[in-house]
Each structure stands twice: as structure tokens, then as C-alpha cells.
């Protein structure tokens, strides 16, 4: 919403400075977005041409001597045909920025003659498109004074960012009312006095869609002359960015901005028969004033006559019945429209107009008729003509809302100490009518404030006018002296997982929650309930079932930019279905090329090999252990989902039912489908599936018993079938004596002809910690026999000779 300072002062008697006005506007909720104080026009002064001689070297140029009021004539070369001795115009000295030609003037030579400035045209000052000659002012224009001030161009333009709840401030008058209530001046009376019409309006109105049109007023003014509107009106419209068209159209725009009351004018000669307000019909079309054709639907409210549709109600008029310079009889429409329907129509048709902007916010119903009276007066004043009586259809009057207002609510909700008298005074100045003087006052809401429904709304009115700055900061008391833990176990684990992966040299990504449908399908997604109906791009259509596709494609993008060795991770949501429970918390990561935790790429001390399933497994277990999963009870099984390499991947399980994650090298067909190249390995850990540790009544750690007897280790190598898993041998060895054996480590794997085809040798180190006495050779031999026997029984492995 734009307006000028002088326009505001039409309605507000005030001595406040522009700066004070703008500050106050912002602080009462009418945020000033920009102010153009027209300082750019200040250097242009009124000057007289003392003499005008022909340029010695150019037929169309003249050499002027110009007096800018200081008695020191300057020489100016000028090409304007109307430049002549005695002309008074607008002069710009060197150094002045001329907005119409986007140029800062300097002293120059034109065809060999020095020119010290410029006499300007209207276009050069962006006053109009006029460029046939320079500005030609009356003889009494005061030399040496500001041209902008003389011509009324120095009127500052203020733009406010209006919140959608304030239709009353879509007109300058409403803004003035708010400022007056805030103590910045006195609101001037602007009552629109009824016009004395005579005779019936020859055009009748029938409302066939009363739900969309709760009121319609119409009047004809006959015998008008529709020339250009007066200069002052044109200038105000230009200041706020509207192009003057003709007097009748300009008047409707002026009232729209002056009072927030949109109007429409029909050329009566082009209207056939009476007007009907109804819903549009499929197939009907209208060529609107923007010269575009719109198709109607039953959702759109229209105004039709004997020729068909003439206007899209409340949004835009039709080209056919528009007023032009030949219009002699004009129909002035002032109506009420259903705000929601206007908003929908505007959106559906893609039309943004000043009328829609106001109707969709809700115009003052009580100003429907006064708005027409005001417009009629302006029409008769500017264009002449004789008004008929008004036709008023459908309007049933306005019953004000009454809000019971406990004035103490102001203090309760804001902390402000405002006296009842002051609070009610503010409401009165805003046009509310408080009734009563007790603790609870009935407040009648003015017709122009459809946004005010309850007492909290009235609190806001008092707060914003009294001043938000008056509210002193009030510390909140803390619940406890020392705050306890505030994060849930899942939040703690999410945070821990991120740090645990980052210390492994991985970089955290935040990738899109929505991915291409084809990618989702590759990772078990593509569920119809997780497809967006209106994705912002075709490849951002499906909620991701896994973090891997985003990470894998991100790794490739980096590789394409020259960073081949990247290690990326993300800890975030994936979506199994559209319920809250279907949103999982997953920690996932990928490593590409040689981006291993120990380091990537070539190095003098040893080059990094390509990443493998074991890198992914290490990452996955690091996350799980950091998040408190019971490491000694985790098992890896070789049955990972289809997007992993079937022979180089695993599932991490806790017991038979709980799956905590997957890891492995990515299936080459998956990589190909993603258009991604490896080596690539990755993992997915379901952070939300890790059981929460039991709450213990004490933080004391279990007692630590340190043995005084020396720990020893013994090595064994077993030859087993190729299919036997190392974990089975480790389990079998450890099971030989759970008391003495503290750890089993695999330190060598060997496959070769010497041990036979289809066989492999697994070498383990068994750590033994004697508990109550030093072990004898016999003890060790017995233990070794037990280990060999257990491994033999459970895996078929034999001690390698």
C-alpha cells in the first residue's frame, strides 16, 4: 500500500515530521517498507532563458543563456524546439542526476560549444512521457526556487507492508485514523455527503448469487465529459505507480486508494438492458480490461447484461463496457463481494488488481453507499453531468459485533499497566464503541474491522497504539536451580551419531527429503501415499525411503567436480508411510573411491586402498556403539537388501527380531540406475531402533575386579570350509571357557592350494585371563583341547598342521 505525505495530510492534521510519521507507522503495525522523500528532485531549480541564439554549427541546437536565480547566467546548449528567450523552465546544473535519462550531468562540449547544465523536459524528470519540448512554466514561477516543490513533485511517497488482517488500511483515510489514535495528529472529517440525484437509474440490478454478493449499489451520471483527470489527481496516482487513464477511471482508482473502496464504472451506452449478478457458466468468456480473455466457471461471480458477461465481479471489468473519452453517460458501481470467493477467483484466473486486494481482505460494508456518493461527487465536480437516484440491492445493513472486554486482559497478556480510561480511549479513537465502565466493558467493533473478534484482538489494539516499546522486559523464572537433561534419548543419539561419524572423517549433508520416483523405487520406496501431488520439480516427487540415494548422487556430483574421494553422511528422516511412526530416524553414510577413515588417496607412507564393505561396517558399528547399542550382542548376517552387493554386505541384528542397520558395497546395478560410479560403499543405521538402556537407580559403575595373575594369549589356526563364517569360529572358541577367555581376535585369513580347494584357514588369537591362580601347562593344554573340540564340533574346523 502506497500513499504520499500530502495525501495523508488530507485526512490527518499533523505537524509531525516524515521521519516521526514513518517510525510511528511501523510501531503501530503498519510497517514502512520504503520511503521516497524525493530528494533526487531537489537540485532542479526554476530558471529563465535570458537569450536563445542559434548554435553556430548545428541547425537544430540553440545556445541559451540561463538565469537560475542567482544572477550569474550560465551557457546551456539545448535542442528543444520551444527553447526561446523569456521561457521559464526547470534547470539542472552539472553534477545533477537526471532520472529520466539515468545520467549525471557534467560540463560538456556539444558541437564545440560548452554546455553548463540542462533545461529539462517532463520525461527527463519522470513526470510524464512528454518530450516534445522543455518544461514551459508561467511567468510568475519563482526563479531560483525548487522546481519539484513548485510543481508538487516533492511529495514523499511512503509504502507500507500491510498485513492481511487490515483491510481498513488499504485506504489512506484508515491509515490516518490509526495515526490519529496513536496521538500523531487529528483525524479530519471526511464524511461523504449524499448527492441529490434525480430520476430513477435506467439500469436495474438483479442479484442471482446473494451468497457471493451481499450488496450492490449503482447510479448513472449522464452528460459527463470524460477528459484527463485534474493534475493533482494524476500526480497522486503517478506517485503511487498508477498510470492516469481518464477522469472516470482515475476517480475509481483514487477512491480505491483514498478510502479502500474499489468501484467500477461502466459506459452506460455500451450496457445492454439491465445488470444481473450471477455465477459464471462454463464456456462463457470475458475480454477483460487487461485485454486478456478469461474463461468463466460457476465458481466465479460475474456481472452480466443483455450482451453477456461485462465484468468479473470485484476483480476486473470488461473491455467492452469500459469508459473512454467518448463516454457521456456513466454507471458507477459500488458493491460488496464475498472475500473468499474473490480470493479464489483471483488466484484461479491469476489476476492481481487493487480491487481484488481490497475485496479479498474485506471492505467496509457500511461504506458501500458513501463510497458511491463520494465517487458521484467527484464525477460531477470533474466531469459534470447529472446523477440519478441510486439503486441499492441486496444490502441488509451491518450489525456490529459486540466483544465483552475485561480491560485487565491488557495487563494479563502483555504485562502493560494501562489505565482503563486510556485503554478505552484508544479503542474509541480507533472507532470502537465501548459501553459501560466496570471491569468488563462491551465493545462494539466498527464495520471496517472484520479482523476483530475477541478480547485478545482488543488487547492487540491497545498494545500497538499504547506502544510495544512501553512493555518492559520481564525475566521468566527458571523451573529449577540447575536444569536437567532436556533432550530425549533419540535426540541425544541423533546428535551423538553426527559427531561420531564426523570424527571418522565424514562430512555431514542435508539432502532433500523428496527424491526422484525412480530412485525411491530402487531403495524400496515409491509407495503411492508418499508421492507429492504437486512436486516443485519432477525429480523431487517421492518422500525418500532411504538416505542412500541422496548421498550416492551427492558423492557423484562431487566426483564430477573433481573430488573423487568423498565420505558423506546424513542423520535424518526417512519415510516408510505417511504416519508419524512411519518417519524413521536413520544415520547413513557413503564412502567413495579411497575415502577411508584412516585417510584417502596416495601417500608416501602407503596408498589408501579402495573402500570396501568393511569400511561401511566399521562406520555402522561406530555409530551403533556411540549411540549405546550393546556392542557385544550385535550380529552381522549376510542378507542385506537388494541395493547392496549380495556377497559384500550385511545386516546388523540385535537378537532375532531387531534390525539395527545394513552395510555393504552398493550393488553395481543400483549404481548404474542412479548414474553413479564407484567404488562406493555405504551403510544405514536405524537410530530409532536401538533399544533404550534400562534406567538404573544409581550411576555407580559395576565393581571392577582386577586379576593379579598375568594374562596370556594363545594362537590357533583352523582349516574350515570356505562357507564357514569367522564369527562362528570366534563364537565357538570363546564358548570353550567363558570364565577364562576374555577375547578372541582374527589375525589372519588364508586360502590356497596348500590347504585344499574350497577351504580356508582362519587364525585366531585367544586372550586368557587367569582369575584365581596361575595356570599350569596342563591347564593350558586342557583349555586348548576344549577350544579345538568346540570349534571342530560347531564349524567342522580342524587345527591347521
Amino acid at each position, binding site marked *: 500500500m502506497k500513499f504520499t505525505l500530502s495525501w495523508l495530510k488530507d485526512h490527518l492534521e499533523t505537524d509531525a515530521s516524515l521521519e516521526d510519521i514513518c517510525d510511528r507507522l511501523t*510501531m*503501530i*503495525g503498519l510497517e514502512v517498507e520504503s520511503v521516497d522523500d524525493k530528494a533526487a528532485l531537489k537540485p532542479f531549480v526554476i530558471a529563465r532563458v535570458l537569450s536563445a541564439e542559434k548554435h553556430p554549427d548545428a541547425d537544430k541546437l540553440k545556445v541559451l543563456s540561463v538565469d537560475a536565480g542567482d544572477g550569474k547566467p550560465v551557457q546551456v546548449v539545448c535542442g528543444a524546439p520551444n527553447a526561446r528567450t523569456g521561457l521559464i523552465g526547470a534547470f539542472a546544473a552539472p553534477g545533477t542526476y537526471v532520472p529520466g535519462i539515468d545520467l549525471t550531468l557534467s560540463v560538456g562540449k556539444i558541437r564545440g560549444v560548452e554546455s553548463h547544465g540542462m533545461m529539462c523536459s517532463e520525461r527527463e524528470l519522470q513526470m510524464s512521457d512528454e518530450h516534445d519540448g522543455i518544461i514551459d512554466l508561467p511567468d510568475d514561477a519563482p526563479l531560483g526556487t525548487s522546481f519539484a516543490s513548485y510543481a508538487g513533485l516533492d511529495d514523499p511517497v511512503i509504502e507500507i507492508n500491510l*498485513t492481511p*488482517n487490515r483491510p481498513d488500511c488499504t485506504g489512506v483515510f484508515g491509515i490516518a485514523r490509526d495515526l490519529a489514535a496513536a496521538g500523531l495528529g487529528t483525524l479530519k472529517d471526511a464524511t461523504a455527503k449524499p448527492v441529490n440525484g434525480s430520476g430513477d437509474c435506467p439500469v436495474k440490478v438483479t442479484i442471482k448469487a446473494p451468497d457471493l454478493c451481499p450488496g450492490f449499489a449503482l447510479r448513472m451520471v449522464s452528460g459527463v465529459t470524460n477528459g484527463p483527470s485534474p493534475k493533482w489527481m494524476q500526480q497522486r496516482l503517478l506517485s503511487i505507480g498508477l498510470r492516469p487513464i481518464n477522469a472516470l477511471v482515475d476517480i475509481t482508482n483514487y477512491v480505491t486508494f483514498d478510502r479502500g473502496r474499489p468501484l467500477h464504472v461502466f459506459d452506460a451506452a455500451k450496457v445492454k438492458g439491465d445488470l444481473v449478478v450471477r455465477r459464471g457458466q462454463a464456456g462463457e468468456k470475458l475480454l477483460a480490461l487487461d485485454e486478456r480473455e478469461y474463461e468463466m466457471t460457476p465458481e466465479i461471480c460475474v456481472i452480466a447484461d443483455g450482451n453477456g458477461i461485462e465484468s468479473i465481479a470485484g476483480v476486473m471489468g470488461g473491455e467492452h463496457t469500459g469508459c473512454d473519452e467518448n463516454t457521456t453517460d456513466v454507471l458507477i458501481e459500488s458493491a460488496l463481494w464475498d472475500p473468499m470467493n474473490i480470493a*479464489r477467483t483471483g*488466484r484461479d484466473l491469476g489476476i492481481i488488481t487493487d480491487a481484488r486486494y481490497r475485496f479479498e481482505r474485506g471492505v467496509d460494508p457500511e461504506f458501500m453507499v458513501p463510497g458511491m456518493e463520494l465517487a458521484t461527487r467527484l464525477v460531477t465536480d470533474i466531469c459534470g453531468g447529472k446523477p440519478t437516484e441510486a439503486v441499492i440491492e441486496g444490502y441488509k445493513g451491518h450489525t456490529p459485533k459486540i466483544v465483552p472486554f475485561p480491560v485487565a486482559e491488557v495487563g*494479563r497478556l*502483555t*504485562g502493560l499497566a494501562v489505565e482503563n480510561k486510556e485503554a478505552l480511549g484508544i479503542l474509541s479513537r480507533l472507532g470502537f464503541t465501548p459501553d459501560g465502565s466496570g471491569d468488563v466493558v462491551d465493545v462494539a467493533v466498527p464495520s471496517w474491522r472484520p479482523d476483530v473478534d*475477541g478480547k*485478545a484482538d482488543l*488487547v*492487540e489494539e491497545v*498494545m500497538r497504539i499504547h506502544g*510495544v*516499546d512501553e*512493555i*518492559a*522486559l*520481564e*525475566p*521468566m523464572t527458571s*523451573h529449577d536451580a540447575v536444569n536437567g537433561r*532436556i*533432550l*530425549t534419548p533419540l*535426540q541425544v543419539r541423533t*546428535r551423538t551419531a*553426527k*559427531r561420531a561419524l*564426523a*570424527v571418522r*572423517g*565424514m*562430512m*555431514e*549433508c*542435508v*539432502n*532433500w527429503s523428496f527424491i526422484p520416483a525412480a530412485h525411491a523405487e530402487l531403495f524400496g520406496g515409491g509407495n503411492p*501415499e508418499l508421492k*507429492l*501431488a*504437486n*512436486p*516443485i520439480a519432477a525429480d*523431487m516427487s517421492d*518422500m525418500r525411503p532411504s538416505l542412500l540415494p*541422496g548421498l550416492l548422487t551427492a558423492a557423484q556430483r562431487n566426483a564430477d567436480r573433481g*573430488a573423487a574421494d568423498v565420505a558423506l553422511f546424513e542423520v535424518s*528422516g526417512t519415510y516408510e508411510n*505417511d*504416519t*508419524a511412526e512411519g*518417519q524413521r530416524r536413520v544415520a547413513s553414510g557413503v564412502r567413495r573411491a579411497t575415502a577411508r*577413515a584412516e*585417510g584417502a588417496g596416495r*601417500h608416501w*607412507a602407503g596408498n589408501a586402498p579402495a573402500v570396501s564393505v568393511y569400511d561401511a561396517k566399521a562406520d555402522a558399528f561406530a555409530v551403533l556403539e556411540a549411540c549405546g547399542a550393546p556392542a557385544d550382542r550385535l550380529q552381522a548376517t549376510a542378507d542385506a537388501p537388494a541395493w547392496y552387493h549380495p556377497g559384500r554386505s550385511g545386516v546388523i541384528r540385535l537378537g532375532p527380531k531387531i534390525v539395527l542397520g545394513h552395510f555393504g558395497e552398493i550393488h553395481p546395478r543400483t549404481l548404474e540406475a542412479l548414474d553413479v560410479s564407484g567404488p562406493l560403499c555405504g551403510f544405514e543405521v536405524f537410530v530409532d531402533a536401538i533399544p533404550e538402556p534400562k534406567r538404573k537407580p544409581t550411576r555407580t559403575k559395576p565393581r571392577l575386579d582386577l586379576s593379579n595373575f598375568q594374562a596370556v594369549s594363545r594362537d590357533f589356526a583352523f582349516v574350515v570350509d570356505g562357507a564357514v563364517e569367522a564369527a562362528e569360529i570366534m563364537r565357538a572358541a570363546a564358548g570353550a571357557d567363558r570364565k577364562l577367555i576374555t577375547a578372541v581376535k582374527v589375525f589372519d585369513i588364508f586360502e590356497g592350494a596348500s590347504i585344499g580347494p574350497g577351504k580356508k584357514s582362519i587364525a585366531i588369537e585367544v586372550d586368557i585371563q587367569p582369575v584365581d591362580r596361575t595356570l599350569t601347562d596342563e591347564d593350558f593344554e586342557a583349555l586348548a583341547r576344549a577350544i579345538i573340540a568346540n570349534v571342530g564340533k560347531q564349524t567342522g574346523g580342524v587345527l591347521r598342521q
Partner: protein
Amino acid sequence: MTVDVSALENTLTAEIDAAGDEAAIEAVRVAALGKKGSVSELLKSLGTMTPDERKVSGPAINGLKNRIADAIAARRESLKDAAIDARLSSEKVDVTLPVRDAPAECGRIHPISQVIDEITAIFGDLGFAIAEGPDIETDYYNFTALNFPDGHPAREMHDTFFFNPGANGERKLLRTHTSPVQIHTMEAQKPPIRIVIPGKTYRCDSDATHSPMFHQLEGLVIDRTANVANMKWVLTEFCKAFFEVEHLAMRFRPSFFPFTEPSLEVDIQCDRSNPGEVRFGEGTDWMEILGCGMVHPNVLTMSGLDPDEYQGFAWGMGIDRIATLKYGMPDLRDYFNSDVRWLKHYGFRPLDMPTLFAGLSG
């Protein structure tokens, strides 16, 4: 008979001095002090002497033995030192060769995670808990329960991501703000409530300052007394702590949101006179940073709370935005691009954990 030890001593001393390594000195020791060594033989000869002879020769021979033993030990020590020196000089390497970077130096935490941790540190200190909620929401929790009227433009396809209607005709959506978690919390928990809600949010928008996916921080306080004065205090304290400045002028100005009444927007004082840099707590510019207000009575009522008994305030701000303001990333879209050059530059080291006791950003 008496023994003159000086000749033997001269010989042995010469041998000790001549020993070139630890093996040679050991050979000298065995030859002199071993079972059949020359000094040991002399000692044995004491047995055959008369007491008078022994009186003279005993101290002489024992003195010789001690002096030779000391000389051997000293020589052995110096040979050992020389051997270590020789080994050390042969072991010299080029210490300018680069070592591999520590993984903890290479890894990075995304700015959004870091800023959420900073926010958590501050609000944890103020007695708030962290709440979360699902990205996929119903129309009720995203709009209706937050007092959005029917036909509000935010409910349109051009603003909000919708899913196709399910079997029951319900059309789910991606939450456009974190505010639905306010409702879930009020439904699940009796006041007093003090929560902040960081999370992903979605709107159909994409340019340098808008992303179809972004992050919001919601706050909610509900009790029997929380008012605008408390809200101004909380938000002022937060902004000072977050931007790590001692003083920060803030401008609270009335505004409008469907779910709060009264509603306010908050600007913070800043200096943008140096291109590419924003300084807070200085200068004459105002930058909008968040929206807030007293929870609308309709919202309280729909969440099962009596607005005459309970009251409180809520606010929302863009996490990506405040991260940008604090750390200066030029384009919001880069947050979601996973470019390792960007992550390395704008990301945080994993051991840089934001705390109040050590300063949020160190």
C-alpha cells in the same frame, strides 16, 4: 714375596682404552677379572703368601681390581653412549614429510546441525525442552488447529506440498511450519510447557533466499502468567546469546499471524555497510528475524486448554536464516547441495561442540 701390580695395571689400562666396542671391553673384563683373569689369578696368589707379604700385597691387588673394574665400567658406559649416538645419527629422517590428517580434522558437522546445537544450549539454559514432530502432517494440525481460516492462501497447492488423497479422502501435506508440534505438545502434556522445536519445513518456493525445504525453530511457553513482557525477555536473551554480542537493540512491532494474538515481528539492529558482512549490535539497519505472539485463544481452546486459565507465547524463526545471518553463507540453496568444498568451509569440526560455558562458537 710381594707383587708389583703397576706393570699389569699399565697393560690392562692400555687394553681398556683400546677396546672399541662393548664386546671388546667384555673380553678385557674376562681376561682381567674373569675366573682365570690376570687380576683374579693375582688375587688367588694371596693365599700362598705369608701374613706380612699379604699385608702389603693384599691392598695393592684389591686396589688394582677395583680400579680396573671402575675403568671397565666407565669405558663400557662411554662405548654404550657412543653406540647410541652412532645409531641415532643413522636413524635421522625427514620430519618435513607430511603426515595424514586426523579423521576428526577432516570430518564436518553441517551448519544446520551446529546451529541447532547452539540453540539447544541456549534454550536448555533457559529451562526449555526440545520437542519434535513428523514432517508429514494433516491439514488439521498444520492449519485448522492453528486458526487458519478456510480458504487461506497457505492452504493452496501453490504454497503447500500435498500428497494425493488417501482411501479416506484425507489429503496429507508436508508441514509448512513447525507449529503443528505446538498442538501435539499441548494435546499430550499439561502446562507448564516450555519447548523449542527445531525441524524441517516445506513450502513451494525456490530462489536464493527460499528453498522448498528449510528449517524452522518454533518456541512455545504455556503457563498461567507468561506474557508479552516475558516473551520480549526470552527472545532478547536468545538473540544476544546466539549472536554472541553483549548488547543488541531489538524492535518488536505489531504484526499479524493467524495463530497468535497479539502478534509481533522482531527486527534486530545491524550494520550492513560492509558488503558481504553483517554486524549485530551495531549500525542503523533493522533486519527482520522472527515472528511471535501470544498464543491465540482459539488455538488454546482447540488444543484442550482454557484460554482464561492458561496463556502463553510462541515464536518461529528460520534456522537456515539465522545461521546465514551469523555465519554469512551467501545462498540458501547451497545448504542442500552437499558440495564438499562448501561443507569444508562452512561446516564445523566435530569436536567444536557448542556450549555456553566455552562460548557457542568458541
